[in-house]
């Protein structure tokens, strides 16, 4: 059953020109969006007030918006989070419960229950952003060291380049669709880093093994062989993981939506990059080294 990807001989390495076109276009689109639209930072990172309310009567986001007219609120973001349930985000932080009280006053003619309030001071937001960037950089650094020890430096470099590729594309999606970047989304990004690595390492591990057992083959051939040999595992694992994160998208609710959608994109992009990006980069690095040796001679 499902032994369909057995003994395949796809020329993955030969497709690397197309792959770099696809990745290039995706990254370019993402970068353009990042430049012109930027990212939609949630209050975790920008500071502000979030109130989640469940109304006891049918109401639309438009109605809420028209009721919230206190100028202190600026332009509130209103997002549906369930039946008659909405999250109202305001970029201002009043003193104490000021913003919450203003919102409750503006909506006093409606009956509702406040389910969640988050107030993040602007300094905290800035700090969290800084900490998050630090965390990613530190993680990448240690991963680079670990792979260098277990494999070779060029493996580590290719893996990390592939990681940047994944995070960049995922960030691009978040910018294009203006999905909110919150704390859980950040955790998802770090998971993507972990997952994509996992995938890449499994293939690299094959390459390391085949390099020893197939000494007569060229390096690109070894890589192609390794990818093909791992293909069955890659597809089964990615597929199951995708099923799991899709369960999160469907059943996890609004709070986990950002996290789940980041994971879905991350799993797809991560699998793709392990096969089509990380390994070809490895060939490139290998060839550059050979050229250098040649020119020295």
């Amino acid at each position, binding site marked *: 059953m499902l032994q369909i990807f057995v003994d395949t001989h796809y020329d993955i390495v030969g497709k690397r020109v197309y792959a770099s076109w696809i990745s290039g276009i995706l990254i370019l689109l993402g970068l353009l969006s990042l430049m012109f639209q930027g990212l939609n930072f949630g209050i975790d990172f920008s500071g502000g007030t979030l109130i989640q309310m469940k109304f006891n009567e049918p109401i639309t986001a438009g109605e809420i918006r028209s009721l919230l007219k206190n100028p202190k609120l600026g332009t509130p973001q209103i997002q549906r989070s369930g039946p008659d349930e909405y999250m109202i985000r305001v970029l201002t932080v009043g003193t104490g419960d000021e913003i919450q009280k203003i919102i409750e006053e503006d909506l006093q003619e409606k009956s509702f229950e*406040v389910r969640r309030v988050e*107030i993040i001071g602007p300094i905290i937001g800035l700090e969290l952003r800084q900490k998050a960037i630090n965390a990613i950089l530190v993680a990448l650094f240690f991963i680079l060291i*670990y792979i260098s020890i277990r494999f070779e430096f060029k493996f580590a470099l290719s893996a990390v380049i592939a990681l940047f590729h994944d995070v960049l594309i995922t960030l691009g999606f978040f910018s294009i669709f203006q999905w909110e970047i919150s*704390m859980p989304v950040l955790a998802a990004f770090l998971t993507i880093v972990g997952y994509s690595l996992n995938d890449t390492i499994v293939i690299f*591990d094959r390459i390391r093994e085949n390099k020893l057992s197939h000494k007569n083959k060229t390096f690109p051939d070894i890589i192609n062989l390794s990818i093909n040999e791992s293909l069955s595992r890659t597809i089964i694992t990615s597929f199951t*993981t995708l099923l*799991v994160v899709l*369960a999160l998208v469907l059943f996890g609710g609004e709070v986990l939506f950002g996290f789940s959608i980041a994971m879905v994109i991350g799993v797809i992009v991560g699998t793709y990059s392990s096969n089509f990006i990380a390994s070809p980069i490895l060939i490139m690095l290998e060839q550059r080294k050979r050229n250098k040796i040649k020119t020295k001679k």
Partner: protein
Amino acid sequence: MQKKFMLNYVIIGLLLVWAAWQLTPTLRYELMSEERKEELRMTGELQALEEKIIRRGLDLQGGMHLVLEVDVAQLTQNIAQNKSQSYYQFMSQVQEAYKADPDRDYFDILEEMANAQNFRLARHFPGRGDNNSQIVSSLKQEAKDAVIRAQEIIRNRVDQFGVSEPTIQRQGDRRIIVELAGITDPERATNLIQSTAQLEFVLLKDPEVVQDAIARIDAVMKKVDPETLKDTTRIEETVSKDKEVSIEELFGLADEEAKDSVALVDENIFEERPFSALLRNLGNDIGVPVENYYAVNRILQNPEVQRTLPADLRILWSNKTETFTTQDGSKVAFYRLYFVNREPVLTGNVITDAKATLGGMSGTNMGQPIVNLSMNSEGAKTWARVTGANIGKRIAIVLDNKVQIAPVIRDRIAGGKTVIEGLTSIEEAKDIEICLKAGALPAPVEIIEKRTIGPSLGADSIRKGTTSVLMGLLIVIIFIIINYKGAGVIAFVTLVLNIAFVLSALALLRATLTLPGIAGLVLTVGMAVDANVIIFERIREELRKGKTVKAAVDNGFSRAFITILDANLTTLIAALVLWQFGTGPIRGFAVVLFWGIVFNFVSGYFISKTILTSITHNKTLKKLSI
């Protein structure tokens, strides 16, 4: 069974017993009815049980998460002595510089500016060293102590408030994190925690001084084109240096209501005295209609206004509004505005006891909530002297910079007994009692982060989280059993065990399970499946090469081990970094992911290897269900 597997099965058996032992309390707790819980609570057994169950994060059970920052500027202000006009000027400059660059340490700015301006701190902070740097390092130490003291005091207050398992910890030099699970009245809890409980007795300024101060503010505000105050477009920058403000913002009202608020401005004198126009006469006091609260506050905070006022003058609001009927019959709510001395005659540290109660059978506070205060002998002496010397004058009882009441001193008060009146409810009186007894905070604390989650949302999240995990697990299991048949069943067992082990570890370490933690659990499922897939694919590969079942299984596991090790260790690194550098929700995720990976080696590799190899150990086995 062969001897070589005995040890493995014993280890697995022990692990299972351990997991069952760790998880039983949680299961018992979850399945228990509410009535039974109440019964056990009486005997104290429930508390013992709660000690052993997996803790739920605030996002799952509802509650409040607060990050408080101690106001070091105010602390410094409290310590300082010989406060002169030049002192206040210097300090307000430091304050402005600090506000402009909040990332920097307040004391570093203080030292830098003192040195730059040749300002001698020693004059105002005697006994703390000779030069500025000595004094600043002493102040830094003081601030550190103050944060520790504040933590203790907040703990005392929270304990009296009655919340189960509150978390109160320090973060960094200036911050305190407070987590209160399952509280029903977050606002009351916030007020209780944030109240500095700084009780002061301050003499009111004489009416002439008040008139003079108002005239000065009017003079400053007149320089701002008065029409712009009424105009609905913009106010000049003098009103607010940081940003331009529209009249709506000034009055805190939206367009439609702005008309009403303009009506509260006394048109007759607006041109000449824009500040006075916002005020009303309330007998001996100055009243401010609620609609004008924002406007007046804004004017009072204006740096130029502050500069023009005498250094020893403080302007305070009353703690609540009062409603009066005006001549035309409409009802208007007012705050009172008090002009008082900057230095209090007494502060709360002389209070030895506080008791909230309802006022007696007769007198002005009949049946009203009040707080009875007792003072130590030193305080009582000062109190007697001050009241004796100021008969006929008014004194304000100030709590947290809000005037509770400002009675006229009728007689010398000996013995130190005093009453706080003017409270709205017995709860308020009780909270004041708690705060005064637990001690005053050394400095005000500011809430810089606050997350409140209602219990119903928490229950929702648990339901959604559990559904996600179960659905994810179900889908994966169906898929893996179809794909790997017999071996798939083993994978299924190891998956379930993996989750059980992670939960056991959480219970043992009293770690907290949060919503991101559940997401981590889902990811753990994914990682565990991957380990199985890698192994099974290897075994299939070996089988295709024509190896015997036993050889294929042995080779499969030993080859897969390196792959699983490298793949999991790199993710482990990511999880550890997240654990170390992440905050709140991220940490909850990282903890679960970390244990998930650790137990992935145990169940995904060790247990499935033991089961599979012991089955295939029999060399006669020709076919493997994989």
